[in-house]
C-alpha cells in the first residue's frame, strides 16, 4: 500500500478513534475467548498427564498390575537377577489429611536413590534438599516431604505432624522437608503431593510387600534396550505388564477427553460467533468512510489499491486486537482453569493445578485465529468498498440488489451443507471430531438459510401487520430491503441463541436423567462411605465395620459395595463394582437383560455379570445373550457371561457389576468401599444417621449421609460440572450482542439519508424511533424463531450423538417451555437493546445534514 493511502487510513482511525477502539475490542473479545478456553483445556490436561507421570520425567515405561498392585519381588528380581538398570519402584494412592479438613493428597512412596536417576538435574525438586534430609526420609519411618502448595496454603512447617487416613488405616507422619518446585516445568502440577520412602507408603496404604508401579528408562531402539525389554516381558507373570508411557498416558487422558471436548466445542462455537462479530465490525468501519472511499476512487485510486488499503488496515487492527485478546485470554484463562479443575476433581481425579500453562501454541492459535478471522471478515466489505463508485457511494442498492438476488442460491447451498452435516452424523462411526464437524456444517448451513427464511418471515409479518397501518407494514419490508446487514445480524444472533438453547436442553436432559437415575439407583436409606479422594483410589474399610453397623439401633439390613478401578488391556479403564443382593438388581433400569431379577441374581452368584451402558458402548457390546468377558483375577483368567446391560450415569469410565460373593472368591480383597443401610423404621432415617455417627465415631474419615442428603450432593456436583459451560454460554451471548450492535449501527449509518427523507416529509422523531424499535424487535423475533428449530436440532446431536460418543450414555431428551421462552427473550432483549443506541443517535441528527445532497 502506498504512502498517501496509509495516511488516509491513519487519519481516519484518528478521527474515529472510538469506532476503531470498538473494532479492536470486538476482536479482543473473540481472541480472548479462544485463548482462555485453550489455556483451561491445556492446563487441565497437562496437569493431569503430568500428575500421572509422577516425578520421573525421563521414564519411558511403566510396569503395572492389570487391575491392582503386584508383588515387590518382581522389582527385586528385575533389578538383581535381570540386572535391569534405571528402575524405580512406586507405591501410590490418594490419602486424606485428617487434620487439614480431610484434604486429599497424592501419597507417593518411592525408593529415592533409585528414583534420582530419573531427574534432570535442573528440573528436579530434590537436589535442592540437603543430603541429610534425604537420608532422614529413608532411614526414619513415618517421615514425608510435602509439596510447597500444601505447605503454603495450610501453613505447614517442617516438624509438623500430619494425620493421614486411608480407608480404615491411619498414620501420623512428620514433615521433614518441603519440595522446592521453583522454575521446574513439571512442578507446575506437583501440587498436592506427599513424598515418602517406599516403606512408609506401603504401611499406610496397607500394601506391605506390594508395589503400584515400576518406572523404567529403556531405549527400545538400541539392541541392549530391546533385549532388556524382551527379558522383562518374558519374566513378568500374567496380570503384570510393561507398557510404554505414552500409550498409558493416552488411555488415562481419554477420561478427560470428553470434558476437553466440551470446552473445545464451546471455544470453536465462540470462534464462529466471533467471526460474525468481526465481520460486522469491519463492515461497519468500511461503511463509515464510504465518502472517503468514493472520493479516492473518483480521483483515480484503483479498486485494487482500495482493496489493499482496507485489508492492510484490517491486518493492522487484527494484530492489535489479537495481541490484546491473547493477554486478556490469559487472565480470563486463570479463572476458567479454576472452574475446570474443580469439575475434573468432581468427576475424575484429585488434581491440583498450582500454576497454569500458557503454551506458545495457544498464543499462536489465538493470534492466528484473530488475524485470519479479521482478514476473512474484511474481504467482503473490502470488496464491496472497492466497488463503490462516486455515483453510488450513498446507495448500497447495487450490492443489496446483488445480495437479494443471491439469497436463493445461499438457501440452496445452505440446504446442501445441512444435508452434508446430516450425512456426517449418520455415518457409522464413533468419531467425536466428525460429530463436531456435523455441528459446524449444520450451523453454517443454517446461517446460509437465514436470508431466505428472513425474507419469507418478514413477508408474512408485513402481511399480518398491514391492517395496522403503513408504518407497521414498512418495518418488515425494511428488514428485507437491508438483508445484507439484517440477515447477518439475524444469523449471528440465531447461531448464538441456538447454541445457548441446545446447551440448555442438553444440560436439562442430562440433569433430569441423572435425577431420575439417582432416584432409582439409590435404594438404601443411609449411605456410609469413606472420604474418597477420588474414584481411582483403592482405599477401603475393613469388613468388621458391617457388624458395628448392624449393631447400631435402628438399622435393619446392610448392603455393601466394593469399587476398584480396573485397567485391562482389552477394556481399558473401568470400575469393577462388587455388590450384595440389595444393591444388585432391584430398581435398576435395564437397556437389556436376559432374565428376571431373581434369576439374574442367582446367575450372578455363579459366573455372570452386568455391565453399564457406557461399558457396552465403549467396547461395542451389543445387547443379547452370549457375550463373555475375560478378566484377570487372583485365581487366574476367568470368563464371565454378560446377562444384562443397565443404565448408569455415575462413572464415565463404565462399570462392570459383579456379585459380592463372586468377587471375594476370585480376588483377595476383603475391603469395602461403601455401605448401604436399610433402616428398620422408615421414619427414623435421620435418627439412625445420628446413631451411626455415634457408633462409628472411631473412624475418622467416614461420610454418613441419608439418601436425600446424598442425592442433593450428587446433584450439586452435577451442577458444578456445568459451571464452565454456563459461563461460556454467557460469553457467547455477549459476543453475539456486540455483533448485533455493530451490524445495526452499520445499517443505521447506511440508512441516514433514508431517515432524513422520513423526517423531511413529516415523520416525527418518536415515529421514527418507533419504526426502528419495531424493526429491531422483528430482527430479534426472527432470530428467536429461527433459533428454536436449530437449537432443537443441535440439542438432538449433542444428546444422541456427541454425548453418546463421549460418555456412552443415553440421556432422556427432556425439554421445558422455559428454554424456548428464554431463547425468544434473549433474542428480543439483545436486538432491541442493541438498537436503542443507534435509534437514540439518529433522533439527535440534524435533518438538514442527513438529506444533504452531495
Amino acid at each position, binding site marked *: 500500500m502506498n504512502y498517501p493511502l496509509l495516511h488516509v487510513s491513519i487519519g481516519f482511525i484518528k478521527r474515529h478513534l472510538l469506532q476503531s477502539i470498538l473494532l479492536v475490542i470486538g476482536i479482543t473479545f473473540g481472541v480472548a475467548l479462544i485463548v482462555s478456553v485453550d489455556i483451561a483445556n491445556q492446563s487441565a490436561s497437562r496437569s493431569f498427564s503430568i500428575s500421572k507421570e509422577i516425578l520421573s520425567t525421563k521414564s519411558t515405561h511403566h510396569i503395572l498390575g492389570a487391575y491392582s498392585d503386584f508383588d515387590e519381588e518382581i522389582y527385586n528380581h528385575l533389578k538383581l537377577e535381570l540386572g535391569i538398570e534405571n528402575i524405580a519402584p512406586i507405591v501410590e494412592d490418594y490419602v486424606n489429611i485428617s487434620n487439614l479438613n480431610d484434604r486429599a493428597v497424592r501419597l507417593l512412596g518411592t525408593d529415592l536413590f533409585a528414583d534420582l536417576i530419573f531427574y534432570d538435574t535442573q528440573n528436579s525438586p530434590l537436589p535442592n534438599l540437603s543430603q541429610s534430609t534425604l537420608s532422614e526420609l529413608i532411614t526414619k519411618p513415618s517421615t514425608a516431604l510435602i509439596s510447597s502448595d500444601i505447605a503454603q496454603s495450610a501453613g505447614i512447617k517442617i516438624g509438623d505432624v500430619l494425620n493421614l487416613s486411608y480407608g480404615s488405616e491411619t498414620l501420623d507422619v512428620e514433615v521433614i522437608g518441603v519440595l522446592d518446585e521453583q522454575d521446574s516445568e513439571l512442578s507446575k502440577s506437583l501440587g498436592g503431593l506427599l513424598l515418602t520412602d517406599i516403606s512408609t507408603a506401603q504401611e499406610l496404604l496397607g500394601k506391605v510387600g506390594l508395589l503400584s508401579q515400576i518406572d523404567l528408562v529403556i531405549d527400545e531402539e538400541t539392541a541392549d534396550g530391546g533385549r532388556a525389554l524382551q527379558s522383562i516381558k518374558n519374566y513378568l507373570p500374567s496380570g503384570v505388564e510393561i507398557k510404554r508411557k505414552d500409550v498409558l498416558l493416552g488411555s488415562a487422558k481419554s477420561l478427560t477427553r470428553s470434558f476437553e471436548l466440551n470446552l473445545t466445542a464451546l471455544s470453536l462455537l465462540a470462534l464462529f460467533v466471533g467471526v460474525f462479530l468481526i465481520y460486522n465490525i469491519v463492515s461497519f468501519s468500511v461503511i463509515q468512510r464510504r465518502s472517503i472511499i468514493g472520493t479516492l476512487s473518483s480521483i483515480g485510486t484503483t479498486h485494487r489499491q482500495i482493496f489493499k488499503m482496507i485489508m492492510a488496515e484490517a491486518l493492522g487492527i487484527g494484530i492489535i486486537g489479537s495481541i490484546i485478546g491473547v493477554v486478556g485470554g490469559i487472565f480470563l484463562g486463570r479463572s476458567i482453569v479454576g472452574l475446570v479443575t474443580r469439575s475434573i476433581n468432581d468427576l475424575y481425579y484429585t488434581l491440583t493445578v498450582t500454576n497454569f500453562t500458557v503454551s506458545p501454541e495457544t498464543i499462536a492459535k489465538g493470534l492466528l485465529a484473530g488475524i485470519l478471522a479479521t482478514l476473512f471478515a474484511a474481504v467482503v466489505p473490502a470488496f464491496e468498498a472497492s466497488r463503490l463508485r462516486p455515483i453510488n457511494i450513498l446507495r448500497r*442498492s447495487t450490492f443489496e440488489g446483488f445480495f437479494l438476488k443471491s439469497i436463493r442460491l445461499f438457501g440452496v447451498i445452505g440446504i446442501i451443507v445441512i444435508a452434508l452435516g446430516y450425512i456426517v452424523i449418520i455415518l457409522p462411526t464413533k468419531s467425536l471430531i466428525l460429530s463436531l464437524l456435523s455441528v459446524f456444517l449444520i450451523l453454517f448451513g443454517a446461517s446460509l438459510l437465514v436470508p431466505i427464511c428472513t425474507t419469507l418471515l418478514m413477508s408474512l409479518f408485513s402481511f399480518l401487520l398491514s391492517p395496522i*397501518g*403503513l*408504518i407497521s*407494514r*414498512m418495518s418488515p*419490508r*425494511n428488514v*428485507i*430491503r437491508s438483508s445484507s446487514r439484517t440477515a447477518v445480524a439475524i444469523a449471528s444472533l440465531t447461531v448464538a441463541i441456538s447454541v445457548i438453547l441446545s446447551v440448555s436442553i442438553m444440560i436439562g436432559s442430562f440433569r433430569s436423567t441423572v435425577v431420575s437415575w439417582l432416584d432409582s439407583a439409590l435404594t438404601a436409606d443411609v449411605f456410609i462411605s469413606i472420604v474418597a479422594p477420588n474414584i481411582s483410589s483403592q482405599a477401603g474399610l475393613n469388613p468388621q465395620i458391617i457388624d458395628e453397623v448392624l449393631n447400631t439401633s435402628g438399622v435393619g439390613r446392610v448392603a455393601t459395595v466394593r469399587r476398584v478401578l480396573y485397567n485391562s488391556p482389552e477394556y481399558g479403564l473401568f470400575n469393577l463394582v462388587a455388590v450384595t443382593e440389595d444393591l444388585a438388581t432391584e430398581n435398576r433400569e435395564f437397556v437389556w437383560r436376559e432374565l428376571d431379577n431373581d434369576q439374574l441374581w442367582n446367575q450372578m452368584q455363579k459366573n455372570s455379570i452386568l455391565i453399564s451402558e457406557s461399558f457396552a458402548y465403549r467396547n461395542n457390546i451389543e445387547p443379547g445373550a452370549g457375550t463373555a468377558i475375560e478378566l484377570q483375577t487372583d485365581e487366574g483368567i476367568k470368563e464371565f457371561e454378560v446377562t444384562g446391560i443397565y443404565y448408569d450415569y455415575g462413572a464415565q469410565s463404565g462399570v462392570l457389576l459383579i456379585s459380592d460373593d463372586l468377587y471375594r472368591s476370585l480376588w483377595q480383597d476383603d475391603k469395602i468401599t461403601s455401605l448401604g443401610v436399610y433402616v428398620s423404621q422408615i421414619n427414623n432415617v435421620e435418627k439412625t444417621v445420628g446413631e451411626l455417627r455415634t457408633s462409628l465415631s472411631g473412624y475418622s474419615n467416614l461420610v454418613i449421609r441419608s439418601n436425600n442428603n446424598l442425592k442433593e450432593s450428587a446433584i450439586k456436583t452435577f451442577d458444578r460440572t456445568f459451571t464452565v459451560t454456563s459461563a461460556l454460554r454467557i460469553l457467547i451471548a455477549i459476543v453475539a450482542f456486540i455483533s448485533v450492535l455493530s451490524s445495526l449501527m452499520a445499517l443505521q449509518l447506511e440508512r441516514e*439519508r*433514508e431517515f432524513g*427523507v*422520513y*423526517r*423531511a*416529509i*413529516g*415523520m*416525527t*422523531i*418518536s*415515529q421514527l424511533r418507533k419504526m426502528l424499535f419495531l424493526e429491531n424487535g422483528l430482527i430479534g423475533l426472527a432470530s428467536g424463531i429461527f433459533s428454536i428449530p436449530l437449537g432443537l436440532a443441535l440439542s438432538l446431536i449433542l444428546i444422541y450423538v456427541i454425548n453418546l460418543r463421549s460418555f456412552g450414555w443415553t440421556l432422556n431428551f427432556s425439554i421445558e417451555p422455559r428454554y424456548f421462552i428464554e431463547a425468544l427473550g434473549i433474542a428480543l432483549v439483545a436486538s432491541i437493546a442493541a438498537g436503542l443506541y443507534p435509534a437514540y443517535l439518529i433522533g439527535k441528527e440534524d*435533518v*438538514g445534514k442527513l*438529506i444533504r*445532497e452531495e
Partner: protein
Amino acid sequence: MPIEHSDNNINLRFVNLSKFYTEAGREIKVIDNLNVEFNQGEVVALIGKSGSGKTTLLNLISGIDHPDSGEIWLGNTLLNDLSEEELTLIRRNRVGIVFQFFNLIPTLSVIENVSLPRELNGSQGINSRASAEELLTRVGLGDRLNSYPDVLSGGEQQRVAIARALINDPDIILADEPTGNLDEDTAKEILELILEVTREAEKTLIMATHSNEVINYADKVYTIHNGNLIPE
C-alpha cells in the same frame, strides 16, 4: 405559539432573517438580514450560484434548518417559536417538498410512497389510498400504483415525488432543483407538471433552480447573492 398576523393574503414572510455558518473560525453569512414577502399562489424562482444559499433558504422555510436571527412566518404561524415536533407537523401538513434526487422510499410502492405523509397523521386505508390514487392519476401514473420506485425512470420518480408533496394539501411547495437530475426533455415535462399542479391547486411554489427556462414561467424571480434576495 402561533401569533396572529394582519395580512391574510401573505403566505410566507421573512423579517430580518439571517443565517450564518462558522467554518474554521470564519463566519459565512449565507442569509443576511432578509425582508421579503410572498403571496398565496405565487410561483417563485430562486436562482443563484452554487453555494449561494438556495438550499439553506428552503430548509429554513421547511423548518429543517433554524435561523440565527429574524423571523419566518408561514401564514399566521411564526416558525421560530415552534418545537422540533411542531416543525415536523408543519412539514407534514403545510409544506410539500420535492427533492433533486427524488428521495422516494425504496421499500414502499408508488401509491404507498404518496400515502405515507397522510398515514403519518394516523389516517388510514381507503381515505389516503383514494387521494393518493387521484393524485397519481393526475401526474400520469394511474397505471403504476403498485410498482416500486426502483423500476421507475427518473422522470416517473419525480412525478411520484410531486404527488407525495401534494397529498396533505399543503399551503406551500418547496422544490430544490427538481429537474437537476433529469435530461432536458424530461426536465421540461416535470417543470410544466409542477407549475400546472401548483397553479391548479393555488399553492405557493418556491423553486430553487439553475434552469433559465423557469424564468419565463415564474411570477417572481429572485437571485440570491451575498445573502440577499435580488428581484429580477
